[in-house]
Structures are given as C-alpha cells and as structure tokens.
C-alpha cells in the first residue's frame, strides 16, 4: 500500500515538474501581456502575479501601432507555400531514395542531410546574392525560395526513414494485385505514410515560423515581415524592450502551433517512431 502511494507520488511528482516546465512560459507570457509597465519593472513586485490592475495597453500597442496581424498573415502564407513545396519535393525524393536507388540511396540520403547541417549564418551571404539576382529583395517570395533549402533536406531525410519502415512486401503485393508502380504508390504507400507526411507538414511549418536570419537579411519593409523578425525589430527599439507587447505577440503566435501539435500529437509520434506500420 505504502509502496503504491510512493510510486504514485513519484509519477505525479514527475508529471508536475514537466507540467510546470512546459506551462510556465505560457503563464509568464499571459501574465506579462496584461501587466502595467510600472508593475512589470518594479523590482519588489511579485513577478508571478498581477500586483496592479490589468491593462490592455500592450495589446493596443501590438495591434494598433505595429503590423502584428500582418506579420501573422505573412508567416502563415510563407509557411503554407513552403509546406506545399516541401511535401511536393520531399515525398517523391524520399520514396526514390528509400526504394529505388539501392546502395546509392543511403549515401545520397546522407549527402542530402549534410546540406541541412550548413548553418544559415553562413549561407545567407551567398543566398542574398541569389535573391538580389532574381530581384526578390524585400519580397516574401525570397523566403518562399530560400526556406525549402533547409526544409526539403530535413524532411526528405525524415520521410526516407519513414518509407523504409513500410515493408516492401506491401508495395509488391499491390503490384501483384493489379497496380502500376504509380498506382501502388498512390493507393498503398501514400495512405500508409500519412503520419510521416503530417509530421513533415508540422515540422516544416514550425521551422519556417521561427526562422530568423534569412527573414532579417532579405526583408526590410514592415509590411513584408514575418512574425519572428517583425516582433523583434518593431518592439525592441534601441535598448527599450516592449515586454508586454512582445510577450503578448509571442503567446498569440505560439497558440496555433501548440494547437496544431496537440491535434496531431499521436500522428506525429507515430510518424517519428514509425510505430504505425511496423508490427
């Protein structure tokens, strides 16, 4: 009995630690969003509670004096375009690397992954030449062009191991059952890889949403900024941080992603562990 209580308390204790760890940032963002600046900067005030009456001044600053909704929209549009491009390129690439290229598949796959390891801090200089050569400076299209350079290799790699986990037998069975190669792909392989593709969608969207370097170097106009640079360039003026508005913006921007992850959590986990098909 005592043992049971002990093991239960370990379980809930551990759960509590993780809960605090993952919920605390959201709580701080939420509370800071409504804090008066005087309250926020008072060193004697309890940082975890509203010591003065809440205010909407930060949200007013965020929505009425910056282009925050525009930043959100830009991020969403770029994210959408990049996700579509990534899926269209990474799925066929991953299938062919996993199935058709034989021994070459492995090394080419590793080669593709290596390109992901070159940091954007190095790449943005040559890429800015490319962007200006194409006349895309200061346009969202520059990001749509550049972001797939890191989403495609990463997602190809992820999907490749996913496709490898789908038994070859099942595809060959489809061939015997009357499908062409393309038919087998569409009727059997793709339905089985939905968890993998969802994982790729969510991952590449998140990668795009928090990308900073490229957006900062290619975009100057406020109206074209994405959330990551929009917030940090418009709400940090010199050495003045508009904490309330920053936190509010961060919270609002992170909620859709959190919801997205929660909805697809099971699918994402089975996508990463490939537990769905292997039996």
């Amino acid at each position: 009995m005592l043992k049971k209580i002990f093991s239960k308390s370990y379980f809930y204790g551990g759960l509590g630690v993780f809960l605090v760890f993952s919920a605390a940032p959201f709580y701080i963002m939420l509370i800071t969003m409504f804090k008066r600046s005087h309250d926020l900067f008072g060193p004697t005030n309890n940082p975890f509670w509203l010591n003065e009456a809440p205010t909407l001044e930060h949200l007013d600053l965020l929505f009425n004096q910056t282009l925050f909704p525009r930043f959100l929209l830009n991020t969403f549009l770029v994210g959408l375009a990049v996700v579509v491009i990534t899926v269209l390129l990474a799925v066929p690439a991953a299938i062919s690397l996993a199935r058709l290229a034989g021994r070459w598949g492995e090394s080419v796959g590793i080669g593709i992954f290596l390109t992901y390891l070159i940091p954007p801090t190095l790449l943005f200089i040559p890429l800015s030449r490319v962007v200006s050569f194409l006349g895309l400076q200061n346009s969202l299209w520059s990001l749509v062009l550049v972001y797939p350079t890191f989403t495609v290799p990463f997602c190809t790699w992820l999907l490749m191991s996913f496709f490898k986990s789908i038994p070859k037998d099942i595809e060959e069975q489809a061939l015997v059952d009357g499908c062409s190669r393309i038919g087998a792909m569409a009727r059997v392989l793709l339905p089985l890889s939905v968890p993998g593709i969802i994982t790729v969608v969510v991952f590449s969207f998140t990668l795009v949403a928090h990308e900073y370097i490229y957006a900062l170097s290619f975009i100057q106009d406020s109206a074209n900024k994405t959330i990551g640079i929009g917030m940090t360039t418009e709400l940090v003026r010199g050495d003045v941080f508009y904490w309330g508005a920053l936190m509010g913006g961060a919270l609002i921007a992170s909620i859709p992603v959190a919801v997205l992850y929660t909805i697809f959590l099971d699918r994402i986990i089975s996508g990463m562990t490939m537990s769905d098909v292997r039996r």
Partner: protein
Amino acid sequence: MANVQLAGIKKHFEGVKAVDGIDLEIADGEFLVLLGPSGSGKTTLMRLVAGLEKPTGGHIVIDGAVVNDLPPRDRGIAMVFQSYALYPHKTVFGNISFPLTVEGMPREDIKKKVAWAAGLLGIGHLLDRMPAHVSGGERQRVAIARALVRRPKVLLMDEPLSNLDAKVRHTAREELKLFQREINVTTIYVTHDQAEAMGLGDRIAVMHEGTIRQIGTPDSIYNDPANMFVAGFVGIPPMNFMEQDGMIVGFRPEALLPAEALPDKDCMRLRLLVERVEDLGSHRLVYGTIGKDKVIANHSLRLNLPEGEEHEFAVCSQEVRRFDPKTGVRVRP
C-alpha cells in the same frame, strides 16, 4: 487455370547466381512445391514468375504466352507473401476486394466475389475488422482470400504457413490442400519445411544453389533421391551416410533398426556404439557411431539400449542407396 513453363531461367544479382538455369514445366492445376534451404533461390524463382524480378536470361511462359516483359499485374497471377502483406489501412473487406477495385469492377460484383472468397476460407465474419485486429491464422486466410478473389491463372505462395503456430500449421496445411483441389488452381508453393512439401505437393522441386537438384513426387524424392544433396536434405532426421568399398552408402534412420526387428531377412548387419537415446514417445532416436561414421537410428521398439555399449543393428538391402563419392550422384545398380 494455366500451365507454366520455365526455360533456361537465370537471375544473377551483381555476380551472385541466385537462379542459375532452370527448366521447369508445371501442369494445369498442379500443386508444385519449391523446396530448398535458405539461399537456394526458391523465392527468387517465384518472384521471377510473379514478375517482381526480371530474369537475366531465359523465358517464362504462362498459359502459352511469354510473359518476360509483362508487369506483375498483367500476368494473371496472385501471390501470398510470407508476411501476408495485408494493407494495414484497409479492412479485411478492403483487403480482399482490393484487386477487384483496382480492376474497376462494379460494386455489386465485388461484394459477391468477396463473399465467395471469404466463404471459401471461413472468414465471412471478419470483413469489417482491421488486419491488426485478427489473429495470425486469420490473417493468412485473408491473404489467401485476396489472392483467390480474382481467380488467378497461377497462385504463388511464399512460405505462407511459416508465421503460424506449430499447432495451427497442421490444420492450415490440410485446409490449404483441400481448397486448392476444390478450385483447382495451378499453384507454386515455396517452403523450406519438408513436412509441408511432402504433405502438399503433387510434385516437389528440390533446389540448391540456384538449380533444381531433383523434381518428382514426394514419394520419389524421399525414396528415390537422385543425389546426396536431396537424400541428405529431405528427411528428419537426415539420411545416414557411410563410406563402404569406395562408395557412399546411405540409408534412412528408420531403416537402421536393432537387429532384433529384422531377424532373418537379407540385411546388412552393423555394430552400432550407442551414445545417446532420445525417447520421443511414439518413437526413439538412437545417436551413435558405426566405425567412425556418426549415425542416427529411428525405431519404435520398446528396447533397452544402454548408452556407451555396442548393439547389433541391421539395414535391409533394398533400403540402401549408393552414391558416387566425388559427384554425389546416385549410383544405381
């Protein structure tokens, strides 16, 4: 229904001769078993017939037409994989109906055909389940129903029983044979299990290193082996071999009996040093040596054979097979 002819079939993988020149003719409605150890090329041969591999050389003829360049879907074949390869995202009904759906058959006809196949295999009550929620034996039936639903010309089966429990396997074998007779489909069946091969096959082709070492009825494979490989591979425990007068002499464990069992027949008497006796209930295995050759005897006499002592055993002359020591080929008198 169709016959299958293979002429000079070869398949080389980067220098490895997986299938090395096979000629084979399978009659309409015949149940042919490809038997061999792993790596003997039996599965590759089946995949060649299915069209999942392209032959390096030779011709595959199904129902009078050369199918070398046809994709699997145009060969009129169906296949049951060792893993059953059920589509995990489709129900049992969706699995069985898949070949018909791909063909674009009207929905009503599909229902009828699926009902027929499911009835044949006794899985009508499972149609709404997902493959993950049916047992191993039922999965195998689903796979067979899916293979049969299109009424293939040739049915290919790659070790379909090897994933089943030993107990279920016996009944499954029996049923497999029964419905194969019932629908009379030309069948090629790959296995490394000789009990399956002997029990199911109208004929057995014993394969080794990409070639067929002998092809014939189960009886002729067992009792009239063409070479030492077949003699040693078929039979549990394997055939005993001894050197005698510059020849290899072989006899089955069940032919090597204590002399008491063969009182006054035309027999070869041998002194066997008993090393160990295994009592398996219905019969006893005696492990020992004759001269310097290790042998196994299989008898069902209630006899006390003390370990470490010699006992007189005998083999009747008609049970002895002789082989050439260099080539391993059978030497017939």
